[in-house]
C-alpha cells in the first residue's frame, strides 16, 4: 500500500511462489503451517513516511489547482493552518499514485452498468482517472466562465465555484458515468482524510487536524483516564513516528 516498500513475507508469498505447496512444507515461510506458530523476526509491514518532495501523480498545473481547492475546503484561520500548508494536496497526490488511486482492492470486472444509489459507485474509472478527468473539466469550466484558472481566482470566487459543484448548480463536462457532485465528494473526502490521517501520509502537518479537534493521535493507553469523567485529557497528540 505504500510506495517503495520492501515486499513482506506475506506479499512475497502471495505474488511470487511458483513452488508447489508441498515442496515448502515445514519451511518457516511456508503457507503450510503445522506444529508451531510461524513467527519470524522483522516480518511486519511498518509504514514508510511519504517523501514530501515533488508530485507523483499530479501535473504541476493540477497540483496548483488541488492546492487551491484544499485551501478553501479547509481555510487557514486562527484555529489552524489551511489545507495546503497541512499537506492535503501532497496526501491526495500520494494516495492517487498508490493502491487507492488504482482501485487495486476493488472489484473492477464488467459489465459496468448505471446503478441505483443504493448500489454505490459503478463507473469504470479509478480515483486517479476521476481526478484527471474532474480537474480537466473544472479548469475548462473556470476558464470558460472567468477567463483564468481556478487557482488565479479570489477566495470568494473559489468558494462560489466549490459550492456550485457541491449543490449541482455547476455541471462539469465529465467522462460518461461520472457526476459533478461525485467528483466534489471525492475531493472533499480525500482532503479530510489528509487533514486527519497520521502525518506520515503527507497531510496533517504539525498534527494540525488532531489539534483542531483535540484528538490525541496514536496514544495507546488511556486506562488512567477512562473513568475521569468530563475531565479534559491532559496530553497533546502524538503521531506514529513520535511527532508531538
Amino acid at each position: 500500500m505504500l510506495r517503495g516498500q520492501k515486499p513482506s513475507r506475506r506479499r512475497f508469498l502471495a505474488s511470487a511462489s511458483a513452488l508447489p505447496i508441498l515442496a515448502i512444507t515445514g519451511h518457516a515461510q511456508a503457507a503450510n503451517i503445522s506444529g508451531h506458530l510461524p513467527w519470524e523476526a522483522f516480518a511486519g509491514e511498518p509504514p514508510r513516511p511519504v517523501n514530501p518532495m515533488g508530485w507523483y501523480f499530479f501535473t504541476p498545473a493540477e497540483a496548483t489547482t488541488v492546492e487551491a481547492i484544499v485551501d478553501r475546503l479547509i481555510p487557514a484561520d486562527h484555529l489552524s493552518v489551511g489545507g495546503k500548508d497541512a499537506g492535503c494536496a501532497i496526501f491526495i497526490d500520494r494516495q492517487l499514485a498508490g493502491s487507492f488511486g488504482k482501485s487495486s482492492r476493488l472489484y473492477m470486472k464488467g459489465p459496468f452498468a448505471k446503478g441505483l444509489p443504493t448500489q454505490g459507485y459503478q463507473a469504470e474509472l479509478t480515483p486517479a482517472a476521476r481526478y484527471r478527468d474532474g480537474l480537466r473539466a473544472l479548469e475548462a469550466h473556470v476558464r470558460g466562465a472567468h477567463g483564468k484558472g481556478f487557482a488565479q481566482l479570489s477566495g470568494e470566487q473559489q468558494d462560489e465555484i466549490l459550492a456550485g459543484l457541491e449543490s449541482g448548480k455547476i455541471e462539469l463536462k465529465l467522462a460518461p458515468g461520472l457526476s459533478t457532485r461525485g467528483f466534489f465528494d471525492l475531493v472533499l473526502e480525500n482532503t479530510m482524510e489528509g487533514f486527519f490521517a497520521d502525518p506520515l501520509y503527507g497531510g496533517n502537518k504539525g498534527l494540525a487536524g488532531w489539534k483542531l479537534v483535540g484528538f490525541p493521535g496514536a496514544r495507546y493507553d488511556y486506562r488512567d483516564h477512562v473513568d475521569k469523567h468530563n475531565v479534559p485529557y491532559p496530553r497533546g497528540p502524538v503521531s506514529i513516528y513520535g511527532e508531538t
Partner: protein
Amino acid sequence: MARLLPRKDVVIMGLGWTGAVLAQELTDAGLDVVAIERGPWRDTATDFNIGYMPDELRFSVRKELFLSPVVEAMTMRNNADQVALPMRDYGSFLPGHGVGGAGVHWNGYVWRFFGSDFQLKTHLSKRYGARRVSELQLEDWGVSYDELEHCFDRFEYLTGTSGKAGNLKGQKIEGGNVFEDARARDYPTPPLKMPYAAALFMETARGLGLHPFPAPAANLSQPYVNPLGVAMGQCTYCGFCERFGCANYSKATPQTTILPVLMKKKNFEARTECEVLKINLHPDGKTASGVIYVDRSGEEYEQPADIILLCGYGLMNVRMLLLSGIGKAYDATTGEGTVGRNYCYQTQGAGVRLIFEGKHFNPFIGTGALAAVIDDFNGDAFDHSSLDFVGGAGISCGTSNGRPIGYRPTPQGTPRWGAKWKKAVAETYQNTMGIGAQGSSYPVRGNYLDLDPTYKDRFGRPLLRVTFDFPDNDLRMANYMSGQLTKIGRAMNPRELTVSHAGKGWNSVPYQTTHNTGGATMGANPRTSVVNRYLQSWDVSNLFVIGASAFQNNAGKNPTGTVGALAYWAAEAIRDRYLKKPGALVGT
C-alpha cells in the same frame, strides 16, 4: 487436473472463530485436522504491531485487514425487480480475511441470544397468535437456549468476556441484564470501566425506570488466563479496536485465545492463501469426498477427508453450498428450496445524537464493545400486544473510538467545509455523544441469497447475489425505537438532539454492520432448513455448516456469542455422536 493429497480425518474451510473452535475440539478428540484458509497467516506481534497499528487511514479507511472485493465481491439489489450490481467496494458490511477472520477486527460484543430467539415462530405465535407473524417467514431453530447454555458459557470463558450477570440460575441481579435468560455462572471477568457518555446514559435510563448494564465485552477488563492456558492482557481503551487487530492481546480473537495452543498440535495443519473452489461429492451425492482448492500459485489440489466443515463467513458458507450443488437452492417465487433462504441482516438506523456545551466526552478513549445497554425494548422482553410489530432492539450508548477521519460530528445545518465547518467541528468533537438501537431482523420471503447470473470472481465462479430490503415489520420496530431513543435523549437535556430513522431501501454504501445471517439455516424440518439441529447438512451427512448462516432470524444483538456457542454445540455433536456412528444424526 487437481493433485490428490493424502486423506485427512477432517478438512475445515476457513480459520476464523468457528474454524478455530472446531479444530481445537476435534484435534483434542484425536482427529487429524487440516484447515484451508483463503487469506494470509496473521499474528499479533507481526501484523497487529503496537508501533503502527493506531493508523486510522490504513486499517479503518483503506480497510487493510478486511476482505478485498478483488478477492471476492458480492452483488446486491433491494428486490427481485432490480438488477443486482457488484458492490465494487464493501461498505454496508465488511467481511474478514485471513487467519482469525472477522474475529480479528470485530468489536468484541459477546451476547447470548434470548431463549425466545431460538423458537421465535412458536413463541410469538403462542403469545400473540399466528396471524400476527404471518407476514414473516419465521422458523424455529430446532435447538433451545437451555441446550446451548453450556456452549455460551464455554465461549465466554474461552474469550474471557467482561460483564456482569443479570440472571444467575434464575435469580435476577441488579446492574446486570435482568432480561437475559438464566446463566449457570457469572462472566469470567468483571465489566469494563464505563466512560462519561455511558455513565450519563445509565443514570438517565435508571431515572426512567429502565435497566442499564455494561455490555459483555471481549475487550478484557483485567488480565485473564483462559481454560486452554492462553493468557490475555488488560484492555487499554486505546480506541483502535474494531477494524483493527489488537496489539495488546486484550481483545479475544482466535489469535489470542486458541491458536497458540492449536498451532502446536501435530495433528493440526493450517494451509493459508489457499482457496476452496468446491466441495466434492461421492457419486451417490449423499456424502462429500473432500474439497478442491487452489493455492496461491494457481495449482489445484484435491483434499479428501471423512468430515467436511464449512466454517467461512456466513455469506461465504451459503455461496460454497450453491457452488457445490449441495441442497436445493431457494426460489423466492415458489418459496421452495432452502439454500439461501431466510437471509437476515440487522435493523440499524434508529439513533439519536446529542450535542452539549462545555463537556469533555473524550470520545477517543474507547474500545470495541465499551457500552452501556438496555434490553428493556429488545426481543420479546416487552409486551407487543398493542404494538404493530414484533422484535426489538438493544439500545446502547457506546464509545468505541473518536478517530477523526470517521468521527467528525457537527451541529445540524453546518456546511461540510470552509471556515464555519472548522469552527463547528472544533467545538462539537468533545461535546457529542450518541445512543443507538441495534434492531432485530426477521425473515421474509423476498430476502434471500443466490448466485449472480452475470458477475464472476477471479476463478470465473458466480458471485453471491444478495437480495435484501428492510421488512416493513422491522421498520415499524425501528421507528418505535427512534421514539424511545428520543425520550431518553431528551431526558439528558442536550443543546441539540438529532433523531435518525430507519427507512426502506437498504443502501450498500455506508457502513451499517457486519451481521449478515441465515441462508444455511438450522431447524427440525429439511424443507425449511439447510442443516439439522447439530448443523449437519440434511443432504450430505459428513458436511457441517457452522456460522451465522445457521440463524433463522437475527436478534437485536451482535451475533458472535451465538456463533461461538453454535460452534461448540456442533463440535460436541461431532465428537459425542457423529464419531460413534457416522451418518445422519437426525432422521428425515
